[in-house]
C-alpha cells in the first residue's frame, strides 16, 4: 500500500484541518436546523449550533447541554435552566429568548420545519426569566429531553428567520456554498472547554459511493460517511484507513398494506415473514455488518428492546402452509422497490427468488429514486420503506405504527397498541415503560403488515490519523457529531 507520509496531510493548512465527505449535497443545503433533512445538514448544523440536550454515547440517554438542567413533575410541563456565559459566534450571549424563538419556529408553517409533527405537541413555549424556559406539552411525554437533542431542535439566534450559521457550536462558519461545500473553523470560545480539537473542517459531499471510497483511499478526504459494506475490505486492506461500523436502528422494511388484497391476509403476512432469508440478506447485501431484524422497529441497540421475542427464521414449509391455507397459491403480485430505500432492490430480488419456491410470484418493479416517496411508497400493496434511526421507541411507534399516524405504513389498526403507546409516553417508571414497549414490539411482530429483515449498520471510513471516533447508534459520523470529538494525530 502507499506510504502514509506521501498522503496529503490535510486540505490546506497543515495538521488539524481536515476534509470530510458525506453522501449527498444539493442546492437544498441549508443553514437552518429546522430544515435539515440530510446527513450533510446534520453534520453542518451540529458543528455550528448546540442543542438544549445532547446524546453523547451509546446509552442513548439525554444529557444536559445548553440546558444545564431540566425537570418535570408530570412530564407535561418541563422546566429548562440555561447555562450562563454561553456566547454566540457573534459575541451575543445565549438567553431564553433565543431558545423560545428556536423552538416556536417549528410550529410556523412558513418555516417548513422537518419536525413540525413532533413540535406539534408544544402547547406552549415561554421564557422563564433570562435563563429559564418552560415548555408545556399537549400530552405527557417522558422522552422530551431526548427529542430535543435532535439536530432540528438546535438553538439559533432570536430574531433570525433565516438562520445564517451564527450559533453556539464548536465551529464558526467560514464559507458555505449549497451543494458544494461548507468550511468551518474552530470556535475558540466554545462553551465546552478543551473542545474541539480540529482547526478547520471542510465538509463536502461525494454522492457516488465508489468515488467517495476512492477519495478516502487517495487521501483527498479524511473521513467519509455511508460506505457500502462491500467496500469494507478495500478500506481495511489499505493500511492507511479504517472503517467504523455503527450498529443502528436504521432499517429497510417491506410494507404489506392492510387495506389491499391479498396483503391484508394474515396468512400472506406470515408467509412473507417466514420467507425472508435474513442471514442471506445480512450476508449478501451487508457483508454481515447488519443485525437481524424481527419485524418490529426497535433495534437491539435501543433502550427497551424486547429480548424475549422469538426470532422469526426462514421456514419455507411454514410459508407454503400459510400460502395454501390462505388460498394464495400461484398469486402474482407487483412488488415496488427503489434505490431510494437502501437495499430494497436486492431484497426484492431475494423475495422474488423465494416466492417462486412457495408458490407466490412477485413481479419486481424498480422505480426511480426521485418521486418514490410521493408516488409509490405506501401507495401499492407491496412497497418498501426506509426508516432512519430515531432517538426514541416512542417516536418510531407514533410516526409509523399508531393507527392514525400519517405514515402508518401498513395501514394497520390496533387499539391495544395505541393505548399502550399513550400510556408508555407518560410513564415515569422505567421498568413499567420497558414492559409496555416490550408488549408493543410483540404486537407489531405478530400482527403488523411490516417485515423488517435487518437493522442496517452505518459504516464510515476514516483516515487512521483521525482519533477519538466511536460509534453512536443514532447515525453515522458519531451521530453526525464527530467534528466535536475528533483529533488529528500524525
Amino acid at each position: 500500500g502507499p506510504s502514509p507520509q506521501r498522503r496529503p496531510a490535510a486540505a490546506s493548512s497543515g495538521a488539524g484541518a481536515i476534509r470530510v465527505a458525506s453522501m449527498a449535497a444539493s442546492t437544498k443545503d441549508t443553514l437552518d436546523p429546522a430544515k435539515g433533512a440530510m446527513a450533510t445538514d446534520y453534520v453542518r448544523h451540529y458543528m455550528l449550533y448546540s442543542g438544549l440536550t445532547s446524546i453523547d454515547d451509546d446509552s442513548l440517554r439525554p444529557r444536559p447541554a445548553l440546558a444545564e438542567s431540566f425537570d418535570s413533575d408530570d412530564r407535561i410541563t418541563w422546566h429548562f435552566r440555561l447555562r450562563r456565559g454561553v456566547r454566540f459566534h457573534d459575541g451575543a450571549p445565549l438567553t431564553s429568548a433565543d431558545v423560545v424563538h428556536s423552538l416556536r419556529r417549528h410550529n410556523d408553517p412558513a418555516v417548513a420545519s422537518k419536525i413540525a409533527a413532533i413540535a406539534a405537541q408544544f402547547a406552549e413555549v415561554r421564557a422563564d426569566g433570562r435563563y429559564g424556559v418552560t415548555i408545556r406539552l399537549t400530552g405527557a411525554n417522558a422522552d422530551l429531553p431526548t427529542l430535543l437533542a435532535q439536530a432540528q431542535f438546535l438553538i439559533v439566534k432570536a430574531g433570525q428567520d433565516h438562520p445564517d450559521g451564527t450559533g453556539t457550536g464548536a465551529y464558526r462558519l467560514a464559507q458555505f456554498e449549497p451543494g458544494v461545500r461548507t468550511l468551518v473553523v474552530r470556535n475558540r470560545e466554545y462553551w465546552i472547554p478543551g473542545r474541539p480539537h480540529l482547526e478547520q473542517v471542510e465538509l463536502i459531499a461525494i454522492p457516488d459511493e465508489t468515488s467517495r471510497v476512492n477519495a478516502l483511499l487517495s487521501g483527498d478526504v479524511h473521513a467519509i460517511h455511508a460506505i457500502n459494506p462491500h467496500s469494507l475490505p478495500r478500506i481495511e486492506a489499505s493500511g492507511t484507513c479504517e472503517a467504523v461500523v455503527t450498529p443502528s436502528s436504521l432499517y429497510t422494511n417491506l410494507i404489506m398494506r392492510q387495506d389491499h388484497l391479498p396483503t391484508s391476509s394474515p396468512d400472506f403476512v406470515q408467509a412473507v415473514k417466514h420467507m425472508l432469508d435474513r442471514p442471506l440478506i445480512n450476508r449478501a447485501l451487508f457483508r454481515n455488518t447488519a443485525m437481524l431484524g424481527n419485524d418490529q422497529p426497535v433495534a437491539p441497540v435501543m433502550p427497551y428492546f424486547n429480548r424475549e421475542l422469538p426470532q422469526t427464521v426462514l421456514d419455507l414449509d411454514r410459508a407454503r402452509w400459510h400460502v395454501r391455507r390462505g388460498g394464495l397459491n400461484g398469486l402474482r403480485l407487483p412488488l415496488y422497490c427503489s434505490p431510494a430505500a437502501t437495499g430494497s432492490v436486492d431484497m426484492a430480488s431475494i423475495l422474488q427468488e423465494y416466492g417462486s419456491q412457495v408458490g407466490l410470484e412477485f413481479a419486481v418493479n424498480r422505480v426511480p429514486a426521485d418521486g418514490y416517496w410521493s408516488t409509490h411508497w405506501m401507495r401499492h400493496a407491496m412497497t418498501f420503506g426506509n426508516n432512519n434511526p430515531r432517538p426514541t421507541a416512542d417516536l418510531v411507534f407514533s410516526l409509523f405504527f399508531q393507527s392514525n399516524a400519517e405514515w402508518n405504513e401498513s395501514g394497520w389498526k390496533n387499539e391495544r397498541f395505541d393505548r399502550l403507546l399513550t400510556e408508555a409516553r407518560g410513564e415515569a417508571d422505567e421498568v413499567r415503560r420497558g414492559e409496555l414497549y416490550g408488549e408493543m414490539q410483540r404486537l407489531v411482530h405478530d400482527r403488523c403488515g411490516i417485515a423488517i429483515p435487518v437493522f442496517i449498520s452505518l459504516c464510515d471510513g476514516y483516515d487512521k490519523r483521525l482519533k477519538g471516533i466511536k460509534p453512536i447508534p443514532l447515525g453515522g459520523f458519531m451521530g453526525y457529531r464527530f467534528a466535536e470529538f475528533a483529533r488529528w494525530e500524525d
Partner: protein
Amino acid sequence: MTAAPPTRSAAARLLPMIAGRIASSLLTLFLVSVVIFVASSLLPGDAAQELLGQSATPAQIAALRHEMGLDQPGPVRFVHWLGALLHGDPGVSFVANMPVSDIIANRLPNSLLLAAITALISIVLALTIGIASAINRGGRIDSALNIATLSLVAIPEFLIATLAVLAFSVKLLWLPSISLVTPETGWAETLRALALPVLSLTCVVVAQMARMTRAAVADQLDRPYVEMARLKGVPFGRIVLFHVMPNAIGPVINAMALSLSYLMGGALVVETIFNYPGLASLMVNAVTSRDMPLLQSCAMIFCATYLALMLVADIVAILANPRLRA
C-alpha cells in the same frame, strides 16, 4: 464571375445567415422550454413535495405549493416564467431559494472550463488519429486505429473514469481523485484537479471525432486535385496540410461540433464520479428535486450551446469554402 474582395462578400453572406440562425435559434430555444416544461409536468410529484420529503404534512405541502405558485395551472406558470425570462430574469430556484442566475453563474464557468480543456486536447488528438488513419487507409495502422477507436467508444465512460482514478489517484497518488475547484485555487492546482475528468471525457469524445475526421480526409484524398498535386511533385505532408485539410475542415468541424456539444450536458457521469460541480449534475439535481426554473434554465443553456456550436461549425465551413463564401 467577378471576384469581389472575399472578406466583404463573406461578411455579406455571413451576417444574414447569422441573423437567420439566431432567429431560428430563438424558436428552437422556445421549443426546448416547451418540451422541458411538458416533460417535467409528466413527472410524478412536484417541487414542494420533493422539498419537504417523506415527512411533510399535506398542510405544509399546500402552503409551500402556494408560495411557489405551483397551485396555478401549468400554462399560466409557463407564461409567467417566459415573461420573466424575456425581461432577463430566469426566476428563483424553488429549492435553493436563490436566483437561478446566481446558481448557474457558480457552475457554468466550471462546465465551460472542463469542456474547453477537453475540447482542445481531443481536437488535436482526433485530428492526428484521423489524418494518420486516412493516410494509411486500408493499411495496418488504419486497422489498428480503427479497432482502438471503436473499442474506446464501446467502453462505458464510468468505467474509464473509475479505472483512471484507481490508477492515477489510488495507486500512484499522482492526481486527485475528486476535482474540487474553488475560485481561490491556483491554475496549476486546477489543472491537476481537472486532469482525470479531462482524460475520461477525452476518451469518450475523441474516438467519434477521429472517425469522422478520417472519413472526411479519406474522401478528400480520393479527389482528383490530390492526384494533380502529386503530379506537381508536392510532398505528401504538404498535400495533406495545405490541400486536403482546407477542404476537409467543413465536415470535420461539423462532426467536432456535434461531439463537443456532448461535453456540456454529457459530462454528467464524469461530473458525478469526480464530484465536479458542473451544469449537468446541477440539471439532474433540478430534475430530481423538480426545480422547474433551474431545470428550464439549464436546458436552455445546453440547447444554446448546441446551437452556438452548430453555428460556429457552419461559419467555419463557409469561411473555409470559397464557393460558399463568395
